[in-house]
């Protein structure tokens, strides 16, 4: 018999008042993987994480954990699943007691001091300097790292990270990423990471899911293009960009619709490409390049004035045109590739 999925979601909806914040028809997550959740603010990432963390009960639908229906009343569910919030709350006590809290509530206090100190080291905080500090004597980045140490110390099987690095300095961000990865490498933790700046996540995640307006809009690197859209010539619609430039698309369902464009649908060339009907061609430059985890392809971040795009190309294509960060390129996208939400 095959192993059940770690999580299985079927026809799940979650409402805040009458507003549907999340609706997912089917989603499965496998044990030991790194899953990225991307999407703009308000797309339902945090709601999904809270449901996976058994902090919120979905309004309707099925949530299974290791093949069993997850009942929030079952307090043992939360013993192996923990979540780090974007804006962490530290208990009104010392750093040591903050990190020790999860072990104390589990009555798991063997070698407490040694384990707390080790967890602080994982997140790059010296136990000698930090263990006795009070909660209010920490910077934002330090507080976030203490919050992560408080979760790592319990060696969770699932670690849910909600925009873990959105409001911390670069050094803290890199330590938070390293410590989270260590949880996967050391004891096989499953990581679910949400972020609205998804580029770095693609290099890390086994699977990246894009959410928009509470719905799954696909997996892998996506470009979200917000309106307003208006009718243009030949039955196409357009979005006005700066300096008289415009983006052409197939008719939008309504002027404020959001278009989603897969990264593979954005083409790059070093010289102006031949434009066919419905093509938008923009001039821009390469700002970042990473190898996409899993596909082995290159994800290229492109900037064209106020717009930024993510394109997916093969390594051979990149070698052929000698692609490198800073390079000036032509970006082409076809109106037919737009999906509407």
């Amino acid at each position, binding site marked *: 018999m095959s192993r059940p999925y770690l999580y299985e979601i079927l026809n799940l909806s979650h409402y805040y008042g009458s507003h549907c914040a999340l609706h997912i028809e089917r989603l499965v997550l496998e044990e030991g993987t790194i899953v990225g959740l991307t999407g703009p603010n308000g797309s339902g990432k945090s709601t999904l994480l*809270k449901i996976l*963390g*058994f*902090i919120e009960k979905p309004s309707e639908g099925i949530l299974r954990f290791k093949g069993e229906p997850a009942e929030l009343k079952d*307090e043992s569910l*939360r*013993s192996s*699943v*923990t*979540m780090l*919030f974007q*804006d*962490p*709350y530290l*208990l*009104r006590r010392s750093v040591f007691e903050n990190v020790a*809290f*999860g072990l104390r*509530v*589990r009555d798991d206090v063997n070698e407490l001091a040694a384990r707390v100190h080790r967890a602080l080291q994982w997140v790059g905080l010296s136990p000698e300097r930090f263990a006795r500090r009070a909660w*209010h004597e920490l910077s934002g980045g330090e507080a976030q790292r203490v919050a992560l140490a*408080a*979760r790592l110390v*319990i060696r969770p099987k699932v670690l849910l990270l909600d925009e873990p690095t959105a409001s911390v300095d670069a050094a803290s961000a890199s330590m938070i990423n390293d410590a989270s990865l260590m949880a996967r490498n050391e004891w096989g933790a499953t990581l679910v990471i949400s972020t609205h700046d998804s580029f770095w996540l693609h290099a890390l995640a086994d699977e990246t899911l894009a959410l928009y307006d509470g719905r799954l809009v696909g997996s892998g690197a996506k470009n979200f293009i917000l309106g307003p859209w208006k009718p243009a010539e030949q039955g196409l619609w357009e979005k006005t960009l700066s300096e008289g430039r415009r983006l052409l698309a197939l008719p939008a369902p309504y002027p404020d619709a959001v278009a989603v464009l897969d990264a593979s649908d954005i083409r790059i060339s070093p010289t102006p490409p031949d434009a066919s009907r419905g093509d938008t061609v923009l001039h821009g430059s390469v700002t970042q390049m990473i190898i996409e985890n899993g596909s082995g392809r290159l994800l290229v971040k492109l900037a064209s004035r106020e717009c930024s795009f993510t394109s997916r190309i093969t390594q051979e294509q990149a070698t052929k045109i000698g692609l490198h960060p800073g390079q000036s390129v032509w970006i082409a996208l076809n109106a037919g590739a737009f999906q509407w939400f």
Partner: protein
Amino acid sequence: MSYIADGFRQAIELILTANPETVSAMWTTIRVSSLSIAASLAIGVPVGFVLGHTRFPGRKAIRTLVETLLALPTVVIGLLVYILLSRRGPAGELGLLFTLPGIAIGQTILGVPIIAALTATAVESLDRRLAPTLLTLGARKKHLLLTSLWEARFAVLIAGITAYGRIVSEVGISMMVGGNIKWHTRTLTTTIALETGKGEFAMGIALGMVLIAMALAVNISLAVLKRRTAR
């Protein structure tokens, strides 16, 4: 005007020589107020926690009632407790009228609404991130309650100190329920009232200074605690 200066001089003498009547009033005040604040905390903190932490039908009505009781005049409490404890009253058989526990019952009625109302507000204004944080760290129901109360500990202490300030300085309950019996139920405040009525200002001023010193100590600790909670 010299009687005022004389009054102060004699008052300092009374304090420095540990005048037995002054000491007795101080000691009585400390004993009865300690009993009252302990009972007020024991009842007020759980009531306040339930009012601030849980949602149930009628909660708003109870909160309004508790907040109304904050303004209850001490002479009205004194009257009610007197009726309750008097020989013909429903609790007359306990023989608590004109005793320290009798005063403490009245002062507890004074203290409980203060502690309950302030604790409820403190628990309500706990950070909304607290509950999800505790849950995700693996806390169970019993931890959730105790840790929430511990997180609000400074505010609960402030509630206790505020109530203590009211209890130690009230005169209506002590006078009516305690009867102002010398060496027995005479407190700082009832002595001041009595001595002033007799025109004996020295004792009144001496006890007044002690009372002000106690109020100052209470206020300083309040200020220190408020600074800590503001962080």
